[in-house]
């Protein structure tokens, strides 16, 4: 009997101690992780909408489910939308800044899992694809060419930008 009880007790107590330790470390690091994420998100927002000094998160109903969050920039500069679409290897998450005139100010990939060397031709921030959308309206964005050899990835990217622009349009109408 003792042979069965002892291993169980030892294993259970090790599990307990480890879990307690993790809960403690989690409590310590959670605020730091939150702050770091917050900071990175703020930096990304300013990058795609440089005119705005501050951003206020707004809630709107009836937006497409792909839209994660939407922020309004200060000084009537425009909106920043975070969107995800299904790419080739998984979700592509982008952030897109749109001015009050309905033109794209900037786009940035936040995360993706596209194939290196193939899908990255579209989603990589250094690939040059994101610059093609800058300054374009909703209709012009839809006319941007996809990339040969990375069709699925670039289509998903384009779709994300189009959703972002139309979400802004929708919010602007409500605002006005």
């Amino acid at each position: 009997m003792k042979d069965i009880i002892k291993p169980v007790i030892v294993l259970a107590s090790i599990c307990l101690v480890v879990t307690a330790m993790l809960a403690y470390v989690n409590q310590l690091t959670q605020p730091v992780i939150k702050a770091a994420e917050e900071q990175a998100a703020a930096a990304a927002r300013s990058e795609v909408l440089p005119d705005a000094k501050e951003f206020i998160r707004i809630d709107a109903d009836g937006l497409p489910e792909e839209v994660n969050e939407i922020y309004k920039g200060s000084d009537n500069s425009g909106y920043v939308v975070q969107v995800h679409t299904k790419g080739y290897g998984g979700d592509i998450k982008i952030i897109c800044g749109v001015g009050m005139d309905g033109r794209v100010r900037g786009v940035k990939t936040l995360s993706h899992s596209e194939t290196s060397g193939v899908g990255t031709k579209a989603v990589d921030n250094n690939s040059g694809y994101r610059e093609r959308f800058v300054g374009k309206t909703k209709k012009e964005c839809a006319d941007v060419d996809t990339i040969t050899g990375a069709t699925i990835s670039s289509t998903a990217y384009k779709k994300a930008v189009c959703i972002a622009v139309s979400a802004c349009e929708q919010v602007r109408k409500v605002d006005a």
Partner: protein
Amino acid sequence: MTNLIIILLSAVFINNYVLSKFLGICPFLGVSKKLSSAVGMSLAVIFVMLIATAVTWPIQKYLLDPKNLGYLQTIVFILVIAALVQLVEIVLKRYIPSLHKSLGVYLPLITTNCAVLGVTILNISENYTFIEAMVNSLGSGLGFMLAMVMFSGVRSTIEGSDIPESFKGLPITLVAAAITSLSFMGFGGVIENLFS
């Protein structure tokens, strides 16, 4: 539906666990010498990947996430996988001894196979739905099998050839793996353009 096919094909060919993600290298190099053991090991991996996903996905979504315990993911998953492997072994031994005979020896190895833990974690971080997660696991397992079977063929050819002394054993195997992986890169463009 197209979505699921894309997930399946990309898991098998493009994001192949062994040849492009470097997961499960130990069994890939270790158990690929004979075709029969390569097939046995791969079947065991596919099997465990599927049941591991079927169990860990609901645990994460309905237990860990709502209770804000996401940080326990690694520890819970590895324990679940270890327990599942034990359980599967016992069940197989008791009820399907013939299957246990052919897969049994590979099962204990799988607990520490990074491909299994890898697929369960990736299914969560990729935000797959349950169906997508299962399809992804199946594809990853099939991809593992494809790489194993192909590579066991390559290795049997190496066996008979004249190799420089310092390349004998592991080095030449790795060089062969490099060439096999190079050939897999060709799939990248093919499948992506199939669906456009």
